[in-house]
């Protein structure tokens, strides 16, 4: 199964194995990675699963869709590689993906 590394704002790392098809948000929530709230459960309705995709992986995860981009516009501390992790589906191509978490989701 692909491995995903989540780096908390404090620098603490969590390495999680997740099946293809699950989202980066779901894998974090299921392993209780702190810092991803995902209040709406993945409906792209709350913008509380904001992550920064590591620059080396930004091409592979693709770009935010228009709905997602509009939501991101209102998230805190947005950077060029900001994404909503509920919109990134895990696949073999993302094995090794590194995402960093913002200071706060609210």
């Amino acid at each position, binding site marked *: 199964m692909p491995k995903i590394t989540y780096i908390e704002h404090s620098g603490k790392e969590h390495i999680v194995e997740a099946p293809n098809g*699950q989202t980066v948000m779901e894998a974090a929530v299921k392993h*209780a990675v702190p810092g991803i709230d995902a*209040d709406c*459960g993945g409906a*792209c*309705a709350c913008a509380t699963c904001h992550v920064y995709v590591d620059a080396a992986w930004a091409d592979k995860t693709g770009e935010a869709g228009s*709905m997602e981009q509009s*939501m991101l516009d*209102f998230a805190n501390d947005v950077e060029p590689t900001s994404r909503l992790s509920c919109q990134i589906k895990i696949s073999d191509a993302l094995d090794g993906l590194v995402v960093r978490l913002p200071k706060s989701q609210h």
Partner: protein
Amino acid sequence: MDRLLLRPASVYAEENIALLTSLKAVWIDRASKKVRVEGGRELSYDALVLATGSRPRKLPLAGADLAGVFTLRTAADIDAMKPLFVKGKKLVVIGAGYIGLEAAAVARTLGLEVTVVETAVRPLARVTSPEVAGFFLDEHTRQGVRFVLGGQPALIKGTEHVTAVGLTDGMEIPADIVLAGIGVNPETTLAQHCGLTIENGIVTDAQCRTSDPHIFAIGDCAARPISFFDNRLCRLESVHNAIEGAKIVAAAITGGKPPTLEAPWFWSDQYDLKLQIAGLFNGYDHIVFRGVISDRAFAVFYYQGEKLIAVDAVNKPAEYLGAKMLIQTGRSLPRDVIADETRPMKELVASAK
């Protein structure tokens, strides 16, 4: 099914949480601070949280127990309904709230014949304005849903399985499946038996504390004062309310930092439409449009005097999030300013006082 769980079972063990499922609490002994569960065992507590949820209302009609008549609350409800959701089958939805309309959208997409019966003269009457309700009525009609507005169901017909819904005016609507989406009742039995204050839900203060200081109540079963609504007691049926209540209680019990309160928020997905709602629209006296309905992407802002109190945004996430931010920080924008689509929402929000 695993995807629907908030957390896998393993997380509770890792966090030292004893999760006792398939076990019914039957009695709360407030004097000795104990909960009795089925089988007679007693669990003692320093703090007790009631998160008992709500139950869908059943149709108070003859024939409501026939096969093919459903309410919608649990995964088991969906499992039971799913084999009947086949192209060409006739579905009658009773109640044009969010549940009813979302079910109608799914059914139409799968090719069922769908009729929605609603006692009010418009759909979504309890939860939105006539303008937004009219838009959803038009969208569903365009998708082939038939509406009987102002229709009063009188009985469900059939011998073993439902065959039709009869209305009080004699109209009969053939049905293979009937889905009642007529609201929920808070599950307050335990709280009632131990004498907690109930008023359309278990009454709590802003910390989710009931009339017993050692007992908290959160989610659909509880009513708490909402600061964004003049501290009026609200029993909100929403994901946001459930999560926020849990955070408030966790902070109150552990002495941690209380969460920053959010303006109540909701969403409803129907066809390719994402409706996002922030705030509570009750008591509005003006509405302002941003965008036009015919684009199928627009926001309706609700004002009470000069104060922005709520937004309904259809395929307009920036307008939703911007308005939510304004409402929860107690800011507003003049009505003519918020309507100005030449200025991006983010810029408007930044300029608000």
